[in-house]
């Protein structure tokens, strides 16, 4: 098979090269392919003991600061992206915006990037007031053509971040930490196909599982444990938490049900959930690094003066 790769197409032979050159080229291609397959086999299980793991740590040590610096140059890019991505929405909102124009202009002048960040941090504290949160910025995002939904954040073991910690932002659940190094951590978003989160319907407290569908908008599938329970459009879903608060802490909002389809031939139904967090727009996130300051349950005292 490799024979064909090295020989020039017939009729196009202008500088076919000496046989020695062709042999060398083919040898290099074979070597490179073999090296790739060796890597794939060595790392196939992606376990912690994989020989590629030291390489990943070294790469994170090099690319963490680089990506962090690259992200700093992001404000102008952010504006540019908004211009590309939101043209449609902006058109629809144009009239309303014109009415608010004067107010917005004044606000715009006094609002800068840092203030946006501070506001996001405020909202983060409101979502999870009882947990110890380590704030972090997203410094790297994987492209959709690789089908993985992961991001890099600029907090690592030095900041107390460990694998299997919950990551959230002001809107709700973002994902969980899967891999950490000294200064960076990789977060698996809930929209990834490998991600499954226990979710509870806000309205009926019914339990179920939320798994990623792997599409760009990050929409999720929701399957209930109790087959007779009927999710409704507009129902909200929060996490029900894992034992020891890892990987997910309870009570973090996940999303809202947009469509419900009864399962064909079996009991139960599948609901599609729109997450509260837009996976393409996450910037400042928080990692839950500590338990609540005290258990989130109050004491119910007996009613005084009764009987």
């Amino acid at each position, binding site marked *: 098979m490799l024979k064909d790769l090295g020989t020039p197409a017939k009729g196009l032979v202008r500088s076919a090269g000496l046989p020695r050159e062709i042999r060398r080229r083919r040898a290099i291609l074979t070597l490179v392919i073999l090296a790739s397959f060796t890597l794939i086999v060595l790392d196939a299980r992606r376990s912690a003991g994989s020989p590629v793991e030291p390489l990943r740590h070294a*790469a994170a040590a090099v690319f963490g600061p680089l990506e962090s610096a690259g992200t700093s140059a992001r404000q102008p890019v952010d504006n*540019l992206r908004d211009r590309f991505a939101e043209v449609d929405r902006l058109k629809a909102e144009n009239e309303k915006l014109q009415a608010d124009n004067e107010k917005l202009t004044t606000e715009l002048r006094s609002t800068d990037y840092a203030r946006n960040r501070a506001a996001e941090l405020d909202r983060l504290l409101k979502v999870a007031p009882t947990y110890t949160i380590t704030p972090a910025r997203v410094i790297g995002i994987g492209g959709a053509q690789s089908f993985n*939904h*992961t991001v890099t954040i600029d907090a690592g073991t030095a900041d107390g971040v460990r694998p299997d910690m919950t990551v959230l932002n002001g809107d709700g659940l973002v994902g969980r930490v899967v891999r950490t190094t000294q200064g960076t951590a990789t977060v698996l978003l809930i929209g990834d196909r490998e991600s499954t989160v226990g979710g509870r319907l806000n309205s009926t407290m019914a339990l179920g599982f939320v798994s990623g569908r792997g599409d760009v908008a990050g929409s999720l599938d929701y399957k209930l444990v109790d087959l007779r329970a009927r999710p409704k459009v507009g129902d909200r879903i929060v996490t029900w938490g894992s034992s020891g608060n890892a990987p997910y802490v309870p009570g973090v909002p996940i999303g809202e049900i947009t469509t419900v389809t009864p399962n064909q031939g079996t009991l139960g139904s599948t609901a599609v959930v729109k997450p509260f967090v837009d996976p393409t727009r996450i910037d400042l996130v928080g990692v839950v690094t500590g338990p609540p300051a005290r258990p989130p349950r109050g004491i119910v005292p007996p009613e005084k003066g009764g009987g």
Partner: protein
Amino acid sequence: MTSLRIAVAAVFLLIAVTVQTSVLPQLAVAGVTCDLVMIVVVALGLARGSEWGAIAGFAGGLLLDIAPPADHTAGRWALALALAGYIAGMIRREASAGPVGPLGVALTVVLAAAVSLVVYCATGSLLHDPSVDWGEFGVRLGISAGYDVVGAIVVIPLVLWVMRRFVPVRERRRVLP
């Protein structure tokens, strides 16, 4: 001269990986980012031939595999980009009597995008990676290829121009515009 060329190529790949993971996702079209590393690999292949293309592709792909936020089996992008770089080098050699024109470069980029994505997703399927979704593949490949051609308009002339400055005089005749 050779070591200088290798250093320049390495710097190109480092910058490409950094920019692709940190800045370009902000400019994603429907979630698909520009494969800057792939474009640089194609440019190196076009500038220096198949051997360079394959080795640069392997190195750049390996960086993509291990640099955060990658969370897939290492070696998949390395294999994909090595093949893409090799093919780009072959195209340069076939057309070496005359320079590869802008159309040729664009077609090379589209071909390389298709080859690299197919190889990347096929290896993922072989490893039972649940995130590979062949139903979505066509759309993503289309967007990706189009976006890559746009990126290549800027990047490839830059890489070719820089690499040409580090080329021995006896080879100047063969180098692209």
